[in-house]
């Protein structure tokens, strides 16, 4: 055990900190609106220009070949500097790990550099009107087009985050309707400009156009837009949801930064803050630290070659519920001003609304608790 950072890790942190403090924007509009999205893209391209977009990827794809520990350090510094959540996250954090694991060399060369540079913008097409938690119930289909050397997609996806602003979608389609539900699914990579695709953006709880529904009407996709084997999409997709729940989507840095802001707010509230509320603020701060140290331990195990599997469900429940508590306690500190967007330099009410989606997306926390009980604790399935 050595809980100090190595000289190389320290130097890396210092480099991240100096660049991010100098360049991180603090006042971008929401990335879930059309104008905001464009502003965020400009920021992410700048990040790419400084080779900070995908630090853990190989240099050939725009990264620095950084270790997992260095990636965590980058994330801490990114959020510490006040930089905004990444609008490219669904590609970089969710699709890319799957492309590294399942993609052909040609797919990797084609997809990854453009993703890193924020040229291709990826959205996630899992959910459908009749398939949410029960993802294997999806009805969207792909039919074989033998002469064309590809597949024809039809059906509908929904809740697609930033779908109206993205250029590509990754998602699951049913290729063998006669097979058992989890078999006969295939993982497709679909350019949204393909003929037959219609995207309709719509508002989320906070009013931003962060959701979209995507319709497929006989959309042709070529064979090399299949990721992994045909009919094996479920296994490929599960690898992606693992990263979404686990480390990559919401690393500790984000919650450490929110906890620091909450502590700052409590300090400024002075004796107006009730003792029980101060106690809760400290508890949240401890929880953010707990997530940080749990992650250092997880990353050490991963570096040693261990596979995490169902344990990522523990992480997902923890960070999403911590995020809700952090915002609830900030709003309590603000008291009657909580409803105002400008009650504090940080818009806690906006953050609260987003935090409330955490226990829903990436597999609801009810589903995660089922997974923890059955696959981590070994309780009997029904």
């Amino acid at each position, binding site marked *: 055990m*050595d*809980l*100090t950072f190595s000289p190389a890790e320290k130097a890396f942190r210092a480099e991240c900190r100096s660049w991010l403090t100098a360049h991180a924007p603090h006042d971008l509009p929401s990335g879930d609106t059309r104008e905001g999205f464009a502003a965020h893209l400009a920021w992410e391209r700048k990040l790419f220009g400084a080779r900070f977009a995908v630090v853990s990827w190989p240099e050939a794809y725009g990264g620095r070949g950084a270790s997992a520990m260095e990636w965590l350090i980058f994330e801490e510094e990114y959020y510490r500097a006040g930089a905004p959540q990444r609008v490219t996250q669904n590609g970089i954090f969710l699709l890319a790990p799957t492309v590294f694991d399942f993609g052909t060399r040609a797919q990797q060369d084609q997809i990854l550099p453009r993703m890193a540079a924020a040229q291709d913008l990826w959205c996630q097409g899992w959910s459908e009107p009749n398939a949410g938690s029960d993802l294997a119930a999806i009805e969207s289909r792909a039919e074989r087009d033998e002469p064309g050397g590809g597949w024809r997609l039809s059906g509908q996806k929904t809740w697609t985050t930033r779908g109206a602003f993205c250029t590509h979608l990754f998602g699951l389609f049913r290729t063998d309707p006669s097979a058992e539900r989890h078999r006969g699914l295939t993982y497709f990579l679909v350019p949204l400009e393909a003929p037959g695709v219609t995207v309709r953006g719509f508002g989320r709880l906070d009013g931003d156009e962060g959701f979209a529904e995507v319709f497929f009407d006989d959309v042709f996709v070529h064979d090399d837009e299949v990721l992994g084997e045909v009919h094996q999409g479920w296994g490929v997709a599960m690898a992606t949801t693992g990263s979404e729940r686990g480390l990559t989507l919401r690393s500790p840095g984000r919650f450490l930064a929110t906890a620091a802001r909450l502590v700052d707010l*409590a300090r400024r509230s002075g*004796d107006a803050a009730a003792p029980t509320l*101060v106690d809760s603020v400290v508890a949240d701060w401890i929880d953010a630290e707990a997530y940080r140290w749990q992650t250092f331990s997880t990353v050490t195990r991963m570096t040693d070659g261990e596979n995490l599997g169902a344990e990522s469900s523990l992480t997902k*429940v923890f960070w999403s519920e911590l995020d809700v508590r952090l915002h609830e306690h900030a709003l309590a500190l603000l008291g009657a001003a909580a409803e105002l967007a400008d009650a504090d330099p940080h818009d806690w009410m906006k953050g609260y609304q987003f935090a409330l989606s955490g226990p829903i997306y990436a597999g609801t926390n009810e589903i995660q608790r089922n997974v923890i009980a059955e696959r981590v*604790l070994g309780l009997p399935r029904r």
Partner: protein
Amino acid sequence: MRFAFTDDQLAFRDAVRDLLDRECPPAVVRDAWTNDTGRSGAAWAHLADMGVLGALASEAHGGLGLTLVDLVLVLEETGYAALPEPIVEHAAVTVPILEDSTAAAAGRVTVTAALDGSGLAPWADTAELIVLPGETGAAVLARADVALDRRESVDGARRLFAVHPRAGPQAVRPALGAFERGALGAAAQLLGLNERMLDLTVAYVAERRQFGVPVGSFQAVKHHLADARLGLEFARPLVYRAAWSLTHGDPDAAVHVSMAKAQASDAARLTGRQALQCHGAIGYSFEYDLHLYLKRAWALAATWGDARWHRAQIGQTLGLPSGSA
């Protein structure tokens, strides 16, 4: 940054686990509720033989020359077994204070302490030495030099005494970090107790059937236990990290210990509640073993600073309002 134990540390832990499995099953804990000493009998002697009691003493003084990073895993096991012995007071708190005492390192004498602020020392009536707060550090007294006043703990296997020194000169020794080591030790034991209660409950709900199925297949039961597992998952790293910080003299070690003790106390309390609820009435019976662990967890959550007390310490270092207004 490398946050993992070495194979040697894990092997030491496993050896202690095996020993306690044999020497400190629930029957031994239960017996401590009523026997003359409130202690385990053979387990203590075996731990002394293994060197656990003097783990922190230097090899020159008959110890193993190990650190709290090695010891924390072992203390967790003593929690898992609800070992009825002053092992935290002896091995973690006072052996470093009595650093030149080969008798303490070898376990030829048992040392307990009343250093957690309560004025109470566990198992003091059978300890040879009792360590109390002194004017500048810690005062080390022989049992003959104190009057003991038995106090009932909710945990009948935790014999507690208020300690009153009789007049006389007292050997005062520096006691830097003694409180932090005690709080860390209690936090480690709380992790072990937490895991024990969870293991007992997982096994029980897989066996017990109602409505024709194991009760563990009901979602409400699953979610109670998932919450228990979550608490443990996010307490453990803080405890290990605090052990490292104390070992390496991190200037913020006291804050790290407070985080560990607060988190481990709350997590064990939560698991205790869920464990009891998921057992139903059998868990509420005196004959069933759950309460042996539950009550130890309650006691240790309260001692060496409870969760709120530790959070208040952290609040001060963070510059938060103390809330006294």
